[in-house]
């Protein structure tokens, strides 16, 4: 394992009285893809959103424990959550480009965060990295909403990349896409791994096996098993993991 970039220490997350994440401790490594798998409702999204403080917006949600990014607790008093989100980007389940042009979708984030850039270059680079450039280079100023679902999702990845984050969180990024678009995104994840640490939530076990270096299996808010993807899929240590991977429940 390379140096961990995010460490979760004894984290519990409550929605009101209900506990959705149960005293979880785990590390995420730099420049690796970590997959989070588990049946629907087991707390995957809740955990992922706690890593860039997107849970701040949920009324009645409460955290216990720590999330450390580069050894600083992101829930400490003196932390600016905007800065956290600049460094830890997010791609959502449903593609959610802004109702603006493709170009503006890329530049908006860096602009409001006060980046000074060669904007043309940033747009080109981000779109190239997201494997979208060739498809849209002739219509950068048309609306992002005219793109197909798969293209929109790659635009959202480009938008996240344009912020030059260290970590990218992806919450079931392919669940709204057809198989072809899904393969494109998976290829992309392979390439992005060189430059970013990626945490991907997926309910699709083949996808986890294909794209990730490590896999964490959650069940009812508990971290059941966490290890190298190959080991989790071939030699799981826990019966529950085995059962889930063999499709006995979920």
């Amino acid at each position, binding site marked *: 394992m390379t140096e961990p970039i995010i460490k979760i220490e004894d984290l519990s997350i409550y929605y009101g009285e209900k506990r959705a994440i149960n005293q979880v401790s785990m590390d995420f490594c730099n420049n690796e893809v970590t997959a989070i798998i588990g049946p629907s409702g087991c707390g995957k999204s809740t955990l992922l959103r706690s890593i860039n403080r997107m849970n701040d*917006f949920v009324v009645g949600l409460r955290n216990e424990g720590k999330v450390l990014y580069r050894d600083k607790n992101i829930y400490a008093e003196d932390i600016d959550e*905007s800065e956290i*989100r*600049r460094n830890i980007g*997010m791609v*959502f389940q449903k593609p*959610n480009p802004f109702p603006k042009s493709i170009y503006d979708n890329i530049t908006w*984030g860096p602009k*409001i965060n006060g980046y000074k850039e060669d904007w043309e270059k940033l747009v080109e680079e981000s779109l190239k990295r997201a494997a979208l450039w060739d498809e849209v280079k002739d219509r950068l100023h048309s609306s992002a909403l005219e793109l197909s679902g798969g293209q929109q999702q790659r635009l959202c990845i480009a938008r996240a990349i344009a*912020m030059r984050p260290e970590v990218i969180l992806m919450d079931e990024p392919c669940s709204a896409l057809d198989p072809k678009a899904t393969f494109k995104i998976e290829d992309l994840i392979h390439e992005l791994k060189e430059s970013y640490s990626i945490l991907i939530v997926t309910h699709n076990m083949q996808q986890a096996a294909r794209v990730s270096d490590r896999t964490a299996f959650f069940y009812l808010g508990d971290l059941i098993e966490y290890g190298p993807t190959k080991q989790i899929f071939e030699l799981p240590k826990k019966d529950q993991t085995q059962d889930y991977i063999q499709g006995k429940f979920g």
Partner: protein
Amino acid sequence: MQNKTKFFDRSFHYALLVFVLTTLAVTLSVVVVLLNESSGFFAHVNLLDFLFGTKWTPLLEPKSFGILPLICGTFMIVIGAIAFALPVGLAIAIYLSEFASYNSRKRIKPILEVLAGIPTIVYGFFALTFITPLLKNIFPEIQIFNALSGALVVGIMILPMVASLCDDGFRALPPSLREGAYGLGAKPYEVIRHILLPASTSRIAATLILAISRAIGETMAVTLAAGATPNLSFNFLDSIQTMTAYIVQVSLGDTPANSIEYQSSYAVGLVLFIMTFFMNVIGNLVLAKKPLEAM
């Protein structure tokens, strides 16, 4: 059993149809009455003199029926009311949808609804006994009846509607739009300014149009606050008369039916009807657009 349900369904269907048809019939007869009575008026007064005349003195000799002063009065009320209600209403809506906790929202929304339910005559007294004296402190030369007070009170009256519709507009936006923006490290101000407001322009435009059409139609409060002096001066400190206020004046006065003064109120009513009708049509057309299409 089957037949009974069927019979019930049928009767229910027809009962509803009767209500719909009644509403349509009432609307139609209003239009017919307006047209009929105004035709008497236009037999005596040239249409162009009516539409472009700058003097409205129907009850004084020499009589003059130029509707522009009334339209001017109406527009002063509309402009003043919107200038107040739109920014304040937007601010309330932004607060409600983006900043208010669930609990304060639960308290503020009903207050808005109560405000919307107060009879307009009460607002008129409020303007006369509270707003005007207040304004007199700022503008000592202001008249007892003045357009400014009328405009402000109409602004206050339409504020709940503006705030509520804008709030609905913001809440109709998909939450994923906000998440995408905050996920890039944006601050609430930037999300509102660059994402939520542009994505709601069609909603806000529709709200604006409905608000204008309510302000045009408002009667009692304006009559009470702004007076009954047709005036083409654009001076907000002076008394004015709006189209609706004129219609009230004629209905309450002792002008004999079929006299030209009496009929003139129908001609004014017809103009009013056409204006608000088009406003509502445009408003609904804009509102029918999906929230995200506007950008």
